[in-house]
C-alpha cells in the first residue's frame, strides 16, 4: 500500500477532531439514565438489543464477582477485576464483527464475553494451570497479554496483514491509561499510521495504573495523543454503553473503509482493586470511588430501560437465574479444572522441537521414575 496515497485519505471526522481540540466526552446516556443525542455519534437500537447489552453487563459483572470469590477461596491465584468497566468492554466488544480480531490486555473479561469465549478459558491462567491456552483463532480473540503495551504492536501487525489480504475486517487493540506511556504503544501508533492499518486503539482510561493516577502518565487527555501521529482520536464516556458502542462502531467502520487507525479513549473507572493482591486504600480516597459509583454503567442503563419501559420484571428475573447458573458453572468448572501433568513443562516450548528439550524431558522423566522405583514420594512443598 502506498503511504502517500493513504496519508491523503484522512477523514473529515479525523480532521474535525484534530481541529476540534477538547470536545468533551461523547455521551448518549447520562449517569441519570437520560438518553441524549450527540452531533457526530448516534445510535438506534431495538429494545431487544438494549436488553442484550444490559444482560451482557450484568452477567459479566456476576462472572467477575464469582472470580473474586474463587480467588478468596484459594481456587484462583489472582484475579484482575473489571468492576466498573462493563460498559467500556461490552459496548466496544459488541461493536466488533465476527471477522474482526481482538487483542486484549489481562482485564478484558467483558470483551471476551462478547466474543463468545468460554469464561472458563479466561480462568486457567489465574488459577495457574496455564498461561492462556485457548485458541485465539477460534473466536478471533487473542491471548491475554500481561506485558504492558506489547499487544498493540501485535494488533497493528495483524491489521497490516488484514490490509495485505484485502480483507474488509478490522482489528481492535485494548490497552490502559498506564500503557499509554509505553514506547511500544507509540510505535504501534506510528506503524498503524504509516501503513494505514485497519486497527482501532481502544484505551480504557480507568484512571489508575495500580497506584498511579493518570496524571503520572500524561498531562493531557489520552485521546489527544492520536492527532500527532496523523489519525483521529475521540474520548467517550466509558460508563455509557450506548456511546461506547456507537463510537467503537464508527471507529471500526473507519478502519474497515480504508481510512486507517483511530484511537478511542473510554473514560471510565476501576471500581475495585488493581488485582486481588492490591490494596487501594493505601493510595486512593473512598470518596472518589463513591462518586463513580453514582455513574455505574449498569444502573444507568437499567434506569433508562425502566423509564422507557423496555423491560419487564420477568426479564430481570430471568437474568438473575442466568447469573446464578453462570456463577455455578464457573464455580464447578474451576474447581474441577485439572492440574496440568508435570511433563507439560516440556510441551510447546517449540513447534518443531528442540534437541535439548527432548533430552531434558527424558532425563526428568527418568528422575521422576526413580522415586516410584524407590517407593519414596517426591519431597513436595520443597519442589523437586
Amino acid at each position, binding site marked *: 500500500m502506498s503511504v502517500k496515497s493513504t496519508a491523503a485519505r484522512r477523514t473529515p471526522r479525523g480532521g474535525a477532531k484534530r481541529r476540534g481540540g477538547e470536545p468533551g466526552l461523547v455521551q448518549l446516556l447520562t449517569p441519570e439514565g437520560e438518553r441524549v443525542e450527540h452531533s457526530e455519534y448516534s445510535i438506534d437500537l431495538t429494545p431487544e438489543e438494549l436488553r442484550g447489552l444490559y444482560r451482557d453487563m450484568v452477567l459479566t459483572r456476576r462472572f467477575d464477582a464469582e472470580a473474586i470469590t474463587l480467588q478468596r477461596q484459594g481456587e484462583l491465584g489472582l484475579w484482575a477485576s473489571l468492576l466498573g468497566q462493563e460498559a467500556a468492554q461490552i459496548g466496544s466488544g459488541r461493536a466488533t464483527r465476527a471477522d474482526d480480531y481482538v487483542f486484549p490486555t489481562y482485564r478484558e473479561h467483558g470483551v471476551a464475553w462478547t466474543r463468545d469465549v468460554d469464561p472458563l478459558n479466561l480462568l486457567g491462567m489465574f488459577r495457574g494451570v496455564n498461561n492462556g491456552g485457548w485458541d485465539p483463532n477460534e473466536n478471533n480473540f487473542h491471548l491475554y497479554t500481561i506485558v504492558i503495551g506489547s499487544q498493540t504492536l501485535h494488533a497493528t501487525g495483524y491489521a497490516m496483514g488484514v490490509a495485505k489480504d484485502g480483507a474488509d475486517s478490522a482489528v481492535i487493540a485494548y490497552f490502559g491509561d498506564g500503557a499509554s506511556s509505553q514506547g511500544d504503544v507509540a510505535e504501534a501508533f506510528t506503524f498503524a499510521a504509516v501503513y494505514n492499518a485497519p486497527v482501532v486503539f481502544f484505551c480504557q482510561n480507568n484512571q489508575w495504573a495500580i497506584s498511579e493516577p493518570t496524571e*503520572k502518565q500524561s498531562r493531557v487527555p489520552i485521546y489527544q495523543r492520536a492527532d500527532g501521529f496523523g489519525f483521529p482520536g475521540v474520548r467517550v464516556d466509558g460508563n455509557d454503553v450506548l456511546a461506547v458502542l456507537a463510537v467503537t462502531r464508527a471507529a471500526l467502520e473507519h478502519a474497515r473503509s480504508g481510512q486507517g487507525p483511530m484511537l478511542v479513549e473510554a473514560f471510565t473507572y476501576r471500581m475495585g482493586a488493581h488485582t486481588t493482591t492490591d490494596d487501594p486504600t493505601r493510595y486512593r480516597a473512598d470518596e472518589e470511588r463513591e462518586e463513580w459509583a453514582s455513574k455505574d454503567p449498569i444502573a444507568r442503563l437499567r434506569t433508562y430501560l425502566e423509564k422507557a419501559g423496555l423491560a419487564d420484571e420477568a426479564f430481570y428475573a430471568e437474568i438473575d437465574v442466568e447469573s446464578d447458573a453462570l456463577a455455578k458453572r464457573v464455580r464447578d468448572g474451576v474447581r474441577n479444572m485439572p492440574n496440568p501433568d508435570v511433563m507439560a513443562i516440556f510441551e510447546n516450548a517449540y513447534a518443531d522441537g528442540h534437541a535439548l528439550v527432548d533430552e531434558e524431558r527424558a532425563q526428568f522423566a527418568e528422575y521422576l521414575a526413580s522415586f516410584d522405583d524407590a517407593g519414596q514420594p*517426591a519431597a513436595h512443598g520443597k519442589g523437586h
Partner: protein
Amino acid sequence: MTQMPLAKALNESLRKALENDPKVLIMGEDVGRLGGVFRITDGLHKDFGEDRVIDTPLAESGIVGTAVGLALRGYRPVVEIQFDGFVFPAYDQIVTQLAKMHARALGKIKLPVVIRIPYGGGIGAVEHHSESPEALFAHVAGLKVVSPSNANDAYWMLQQAIECDDPVIFFEPKRRYWDKGEVDTTAVPGDLHKAVVVQEGTDLTLVAYGPMVKVCREAAAAAAKEGRSLEVVDLRSMSPIDFDTVQASTEKTGRLVVVHEAPVFYGAGAEIAARITERSFYHLEAPVLRVGGFHAPYPPARLEEEYLPGLDRVLDAVDRALAF
C-alpha cells in the same frame, strides 16, 4: 542485631541510603504512596517526599533512560523494576547505554545506578513474574550483578551497590522476602563481590546464590543425616564471580555442583563449571554438575513446585557427582 524479614532489611537499607546521601533517588512504578508491590519502599515516599521517591510513568526504558540522565547530573538513582519479566523493555538502555557509557567517555563520567529486580519463582504468580534472567546481564560487560540470600546481606549489599560507582543489577530473591534473619546494622561488611562459605563440608561443594542458598543448606543438612558432608558456598555475586573462593572449596572437596533457578542452558552454572574445571582440572573427582531450570518458558504456577530445583534434585545431583 535485630531480627527482620529480608524485605524489611531492604527497606531499612534504602532508608539509610536516602538519609546518608541527598543524591540518592528512588524511582519506579508504584514505589511512592503504595511503597511498591512488595512494599520494599514502604514509608519512604512519606518521609522523603516525591522529589526523592519518584512514581514514574509506566515505561521501563524511560525509567532507566532518565536514571542515566539523572546520574549524569550527579544523582544516584535506585531504580525498581516491578518484576523480573518486566526488565526487558529497559534492556536496550541497560546494555547499550548504562553499561557502556563509562567506557565511551574513557572514564570521564560515572553511572552509579542500581537496578533492583525482584526475581525468581515460588510465589504462585502468573506469567513473567517468576523469571531468573541474571545470565542475560552477567554476560554484559559494564554491569555488575549481585543477589543476596539473607536479610543481613540484603541490608549491606544494597548499601554497597548504591555506593558503587558502576551500574549494579541487584536481584532480590522475592520468595525469600518474608524470611527473617539477623541484621547487624553496625557490622563492617565484606567485599560486595566476595563469595562466602556458609556451611563447611568435606565431600562436595554446593554453589548457589539468592533463593537457592536456603535450598542448598537444607540439602546439606539432609545429606549430613546420611553421613555426607557438603560445603555450601553463597556466591552472592554473579558478575564478577569470586572464582577463588569456589576454586578453594572445590579443590578441598573434589566435587562441585552449581545450583540456580535460571535455566541451565547458557546459565551461570556453565560459566562456573567451565572456569573451575579449567582451574582445578586435576582436583576434580567428578565433572561439575548443574542443577537449574529447564530450557522451557517458566511454567504456570501449578507446576512450579515440580519445576523449581528443590532438595531432591540437588541431592540427586550430589549422588551423581559422588558416584563418579
